[in-house]
């Protein structure tokens, strides 16, 4: 590495010298010395931190003719999302498939069968494996083919590139970094471009990033200032950071070189960067220089690697698998041992009638033991079912479509239903123990309405005209009120502040509309509506409009507003100090027509109050707090006049900070901080955010279902608390345990000490004094004696998680476990994820679920076991990152209590059933070894061995696992308590597993010994003829197929026609197949073992009788158990509910409602 760095250094050191000659010739005014120095700096900088920045030569022009042009190597603009090519598909795909442990296991078995002389032909395990592998390969190949097609569509898309003065059409994939690309309206950008030129006069263009983050509003992007209109003359380089996936971050610098001047430096930010995948809107044409291409574009970087979530069921499967593997190994071991013990008796190993081949005689004893062991493994390997993986996958894949298909999840407003991003977690929906919900947009509608405001301490309520939301009752009512209360000047200042301090856009007029006349401007704007990243802002602008001040739009950095007198005021927008969740405020600096420079700032009370004068705060604080407890979202508005000097200084430092390549954010924050001080508080606003439909019912249902609901919000405590009360998470008798900055400060001592003290106190109250039944495991559902609610805020949380206090975390969690609801307010997005992780990793690792709708919830959605996105108003990031997305919070109830519960029951049955049926499949085979001299003689014919799991018994369980409703969805939803029945992986714990295993063993023993008893006299036909070993196996197999299928039929509580078809169909197919298989002499078979065996079997009355007897006998305990288990409370309840539901349904159908 040092060598290479040295190498580049030398190379570049010589470069400027070379270039200097040329430079002189062209009469370049740049001093050679500075050139060298700058070049060196840059090169050193690059040498030291290759990862830090990249240099792009716009249009491939050299930095200066004085410098050699060594085009740096970047990847081309080809998007490769496909995994395979035609050539590497087979090896690569196979390799990937065999990396799965199950496939690998079967491969090994197959290889053993090929190599060693084993009882069953390699076909029996090879064919199913081949089938599984082929199906998967075809599926993946097809998907990859689609990807290839999509890639090609993108890569071959023709684009216009300005190349050496001519514009040429190229295929998109041929774009190189530094190319100047032209993009027309409604085209997508072929790579990440820095905007150089726009057809719009103001140097802006509009872009929609719907395909990237789902936000469909038009975003404004700006050209790099001071660029020649003729791009051919442009000679510039561009330095920017190395590609990184954050869509909203970009820092760079552009050096624009003009003849005879020092290069002009312009800073570049995300507003200059057009992302690949975004679409140009409302702008006829733009040109930009490619900075990131192909796989280095932000889009490409973003689509890589979303971590896979795995469900608990899979963990259970793996546990069971280990058990079965042990059973398999011990069976093989027992058989091998017994074989050699048995063979030691004289005459048993090699009686005269059964001589070994020469090869067998020559084999080494120990090698033979080993191959015998392997042979037994192969013989019993069916105990670990290949098909289970296939069936589970299929069940998940098909099952998840029921969520997408559910009409109850359809929301007419957004015209969308539920979305399933992953089908791996269906059953996890039935296992949720902790629900983490966002407040804004999730519990509440995020549909803001301006309720009231307060100017200088006077309250203004838009009372009289509240009903006319869009009305213009401005002239008298509010104006009079305003005059009565605060000075007119202050009111207007306040309203102007509301009109100016935001980033709202007015929707573009349609193409047909002519210029609007002045009087109607406001109405026109109103009709077109506003677009903003936050609905609060729209609410405020609309609120101001009701009081007479209308925002007409932003044009060429001029904000137009219409004041009460229908006059248009224009302000130059100088700077926007953007909103961010850390500062929790935003500001604008504008210059009025009168020449005054004003800074308007609005933000959360805590972030504004310290920055204004104390006496102003006094007047407004009570209002803010009252509004907050009423559940409104409050914002404070402040302003500040900037003197010319102050502005000049601020302007300079802002520009400088924006040019910084490193730590730009930090520097900007510092300047913002300095600017936003010493302001004057004008007033506060209150915006109502209404609860989502059925939020209360949903929360209640979730709590009844035994889930702990945690509300995680960035909002302030009072607002959040009132929301919690509103949706009944807290009730009047709930005792609130508060752990916030306020309670910490109250004690007057050091924060940490106080924190510990409070924690211990709460712990005593909520955990120790609480009745022991409320412990985590038993999950008693009586909300018995005293409910506790816990409140913590972000600051306290970070204090709690910091090292000295972190040992109290478990204390904190214990308290939270015992509280009915927990409210975490003032949370930063990462803190939300932190909390989720904290809970996720507690003892017993409870299943967590996060619900959110906004970008700030993404981290917690990704962190939780199950992430649910609400298709709300705040963009689509949450939906994109979620596992499931539903339009409304209320849908959560059906999703969890209905679908989740059912999916869990279905998959649990599927898994248990699969293990069970293979146990009783293989057990007779194992027992048979004791009667055939441990010779690995299979009991069943190869065809049966192969088809058992694939054809005879797979479809009924698949149908069951798709359609079973042991309790119908309505009842599940109405009785949330039922959810507790499956809580904590109830059906896949060791108890049920042992039950199933015992059943399998019982039935296996019964099948074998029942038929064994019958075969004491193998003359079973009425003509005295005898049956052989294949008849024996076929009887056992027949009994087994019927028993196993009927066992499932016994467990099926919901018989649709599909269940009927599949269950009876499977049995019929078995019979048909057996006839067919035994009815023909198959030329490709070496031995016609089953020739007419089945048909002959059915001609024997005894065989019929024994089949019937054994089926009944093996199902008897199951029936008994089901019957005797019934009298349990929940079942009675369930029965009653069902009958009442049926009555209800009957009633409805009788009255003709349905």
């Amino acid at each position, binding site marked *: 590495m040092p060598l290479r760095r040295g190498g580049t250094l030398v190379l570049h050191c010589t470069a400027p010298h070379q270039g200097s000659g040329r430079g002189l010739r062209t009469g370049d005014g740049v001093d050679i010395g500075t050139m060298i120095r700058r070049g060196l700096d840059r090169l050193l900088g690059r040498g030291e931190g290759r990862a830090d920045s990249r240099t792009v030569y716009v249009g491939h022009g050299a930095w200066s003719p004085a410098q050699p042009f060594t085009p740096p190597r970047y990847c081309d603009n080809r998007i490769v*999302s496909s995994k395979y090519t035609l050539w590497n598909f087979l090896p690569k795909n196979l390799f990937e498939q065999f990396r799965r442990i199950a496939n690998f296991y079967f491969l090994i078995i197959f290889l053993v069968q090929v190599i060693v002389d084993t009882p069953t032909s390699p076909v029996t395990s090879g064919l199913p494996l081949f089938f599984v592998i082929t199906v998967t390969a075809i599926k993946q190949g097809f998907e990859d083919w689609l*990807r290839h097609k*999509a*890639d090609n569509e*993108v890569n071959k898309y023709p684009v216009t590139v300005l190349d050496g003065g001519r514009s040429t059409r190229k295929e998109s994939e041929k774009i190189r970094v530094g190319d100047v690309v032209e993009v027309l309206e409604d085209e997508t950008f072929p790579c990440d471009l820095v905007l150089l030129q726009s057809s719009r006069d103001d140097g802006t263009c509009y872009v*929609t990033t*719907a*395909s*990237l983050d*789902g936000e*469909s509003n038009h975003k404004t992007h700006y050209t790099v200032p001071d660029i020649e209109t003729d791009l051919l003359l442009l000679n510039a380089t561009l330095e920017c950071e190395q590609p990184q996936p954050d869509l909203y971050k970009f820092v760079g610098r552009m050096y624009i070189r003009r003849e005879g001047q020092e290069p002009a430096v312009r800073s570049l930010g995300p507003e200059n960067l057009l992302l690949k*995948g975004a*679409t140009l809107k409302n702008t006829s044409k733009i040109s930009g220089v490619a900075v990131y291409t192909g796989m280095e574009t932000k889009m490409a970087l973003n*689509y890589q690697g979303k971590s896979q979530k795995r469900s608990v069921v899979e963990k259970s499967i793996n546990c069971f698998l280990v058990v079965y593997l042990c059973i398999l190994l011990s069976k093989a071991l027992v058989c091998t041992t017994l074989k050699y013990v048995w063979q030691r008796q004289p*005459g048993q190993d090699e*009686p*005269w*009638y*059964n001589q*070994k081949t020469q090869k067998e005689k020559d084999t080494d004893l120990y090698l033979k033991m080993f191959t015998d062991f392997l042979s037994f493994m192969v013989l019993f390997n069916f105990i670990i079912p290949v098909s289970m993986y296939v069936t589970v996958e299929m069940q998940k894949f098909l099952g998840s479509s*029921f969520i997408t*298909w559910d*009409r109850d999840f*359809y929301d007419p407003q*957004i015209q969308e*239903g539920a979305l399933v991003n992953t089908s791996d977690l269906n059953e996890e929906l039935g296992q949720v123990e902790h629900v983490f919900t966002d407040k804004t947009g999730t519990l509440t509608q995020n549909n803001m309405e301006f309720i009231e405001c307060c100017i200088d301490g006077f309250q203004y309520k838009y009372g009289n005209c509240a009903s006319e939301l869009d009305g213009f009752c401005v002239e008298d009512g509010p104006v009079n009120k305003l005059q009565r209360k605060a000075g007119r000047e202050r009111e207007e200042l306040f309203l102007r502040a509301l009109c100016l301090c935001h980033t709202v856009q007015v929707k573009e007029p349609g193409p047909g509309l002519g210029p609007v006349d002045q009087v109607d401007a406001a109405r026109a704007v109103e009709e077109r509506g506003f677009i903003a990243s936050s609905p609060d802002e729209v609410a405020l602008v609309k609120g101001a409009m009701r009081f007479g001040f209308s925002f007409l739009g932003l044009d060429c950095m001029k904000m137009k507003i219409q004041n009460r007198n229908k006059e248009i005021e224009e302000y130059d927008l100088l700077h926007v100090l953007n909103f961010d969740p850390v500062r929790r405020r935003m500001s604008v600096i504008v210059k009025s027509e009168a020449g005054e420079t004003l800074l308007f700032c609005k933000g959360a009370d805590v972030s504004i109050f310290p920055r204004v004068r104390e006496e102003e705060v006094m007047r407004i604080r009570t209002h803010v707090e009252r509004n907050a407890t009423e559940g409104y979202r409050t914002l404070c508005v402040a302003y500040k006049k900037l003197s010319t000097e102050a502005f000049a200084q601020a302007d300079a430092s802002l520009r400088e900070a924006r040019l910084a390549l490193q730590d730009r954010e930090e520097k900007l924050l510092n300047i913002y901080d300095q600017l936003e001080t010493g302001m004057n508080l004008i007033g506060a606003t209150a915006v109502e955010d209404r609860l989502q439909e059925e939020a209360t019912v949903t929360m209640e249902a979730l709590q009844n279902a035994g889930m702990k609901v945690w509300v995680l919000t960035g909002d302030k405590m009072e607002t959040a608390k009132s929301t919690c009360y509103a949706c009944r998470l807290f009730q009047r008798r709930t005792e609130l345990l508060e752990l916030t900055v306020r309670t910490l400060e109250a004690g007057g001592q050091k924060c940490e000490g106080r924190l510990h003290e409070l924690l211990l106190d709460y712990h005593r109250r909520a955990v120790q004094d609480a009745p022991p039944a409320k412990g985590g495991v038993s999950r008693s559902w009586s909300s018995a004696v005293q409910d506790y609610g816990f409140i913590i805020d972000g600051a306290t949380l970070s204090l709690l998680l910091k090292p000295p206090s972190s040992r109290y975390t478990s204390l904190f969690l214990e308290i939270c476990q015992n509280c009915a609801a927990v409210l975490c307010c003032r949370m930063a997005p990462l803190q939300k994820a932190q909390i989720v992780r904290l809970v996720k990793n507690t003892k017993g690792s409870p299943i967590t679920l996060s619900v959110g709708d906004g970008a700030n919830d993404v981290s917690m959605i990704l962190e939780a076991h199950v992430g649910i996105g609400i298709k709300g108003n705040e963009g689509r990031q949450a939906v994109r990152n979620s596992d499931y997305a539903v339009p409304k919070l209320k849908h959560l109830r059906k999703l969890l209590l209905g679908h989740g519960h059912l999916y869990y029951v279905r998959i649990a049955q599927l898994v248990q059933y699969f293990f069970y049926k293979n146990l009783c499949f293989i057990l007779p085979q194992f027992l048979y070894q004791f*009667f*055939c*001299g441990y*010779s*690995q003689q299979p009991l069943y014919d190869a065809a049966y061995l192969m088809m058992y799991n694939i054809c005879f018994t797979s479809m009924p369980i698949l149908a069951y696992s798709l*359609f079973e409703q042991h309790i119908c*969805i309505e009842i599940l939803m109405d009785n949330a308590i039922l959810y507790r029945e499956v809580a904590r992986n109830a059906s896949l714990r060791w108890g049920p597993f042992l039950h199933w295993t015992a059943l399998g063993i019982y039935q296996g023993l019964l099948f074998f010994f029942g038929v064994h*008893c*019958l075969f004491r006299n*193998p*003359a079973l036909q009425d*003509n*005295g003829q*005898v049956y*052989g*070993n294949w008849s024996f*196996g076929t009887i056992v197999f027949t009994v087994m197929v019927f028993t196993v299928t009927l066992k499932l039929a016994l467990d099926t*509580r919901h*018989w*649709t026609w599909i269940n009927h078809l599949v269950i009876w169909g499977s049995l019929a197919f078995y019979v048909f197949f057996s006839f067919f298989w035994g009815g023909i002499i198959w030329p490709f078979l070496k*031995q*016609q073992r089953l*020739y*007419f065996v089945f048909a002959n079997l059915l001609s*024997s009355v*005894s065989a019929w*009788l024994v089949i019937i*007897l054994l089926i009944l006998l093996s199902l*008897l305990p199951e029936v008994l158990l089901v*019957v005797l288990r*019934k009298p349990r409370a929940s079942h009675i309840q369930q*029965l*009653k509910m*069902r009958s009442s539901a049926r009555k209800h349904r009957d009633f409805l159908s009788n009255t003709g409602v349905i």
Partner: protein
Amino acid sequence: MMASSYSAKEEDGHHSGAPGPGGVNAKSRKPDNTAFKQQRLPAWQPILTAGTVLPAFFIIGLLFIPIGIGLYVTSNNIKEYEIDYTGVDMSSPCFNCSQNYSWNSTKPCTCSVAFSLDQPFESNVFMYYGLSNYYQNHRRYVKSRDDSQLNGNLNSLKDPSKECEPYRTNDGLPIAPCGAIANSLFNDTLELYYNDPNGTKIPIRLVKTGIAWWTDKHVKFRNPVGDGSNLSAVFQGTTKPVNWQKYVYQLDTDPDNNGFINEDLIVWMRTAALPTFRKLYRIIEKQGDATPTLPRGNYTLLITYNYPVRSFEGRKRMILSTISWMGGKNPFLGIAYITVGSVCFFLGVVLLIIHHKYGSRSNNADIAS
């Protein structure tokens, strides 16, 4: 993944960007209201309760007990007589034969066992030979055959399957029929004589056809078809199995029971399920209505003792049995049916009691709620 999801997202964007009045659009997005997709398929929802299962228990009980009794009686009515003629004891008549046995002895060893039947065997009597501790179901043994050779395939006749090793060839000639099973064909000859009270031994006619499955005899096993009708010509170029004394075309004089379609061979080739088994040897047909097939009296079993079993502690038996509709004598089914029937009946009674108690309890609960 990336590019394909890309286009999908794009579409999304368009829709949410312009949620215009798209009636058609709305329809296409709303999930179909089919019973299947809404998981509302009409369904039968059975619930197993004591009430519903009770009748089933009683019915099973009431059905099974008579069937069981019928089976038991039938099985008991079957006459069966069994003789072990291995010759393990010094006293047994075949002791000598079993002792001085060697494969290549030219002179067959014969012995006769006398026995008497206390009861007459009325209907057709079936004569079985039984072997014990004989692992016909050993894997190496089971697979040691060539079904296509036995099916008359000429190629297989000359070139038997490798599965037949080490009984595939002998002295360079292919063995017909090849394999361990055929090689170890049971070759004792059993003859039965009725000792008339007046002292004469009347040989009883033993029918040697009809002992193999019809399909085996007619489809699965076929003699190879050669140029001539002469079997020995067809089998030219093959040799007899190592342990056989005759060639396969010398098994019987009857051309329909010779070669591969010899029924003794076919029966033997159907490998038994368990190490103790019996195979049908001969059938003694009922002569007329008047006399029983085997009247009460003394009999002599004349054995040509060829088959060695002492080396592996085996036993040889001769079994005479009549047959009923359920096959040979086996009390197991009858007992099992009676037991299961009684258990079901008993459980039915228990459940009835429980149901009474529980039923009244649930009624109370109903009233209470």
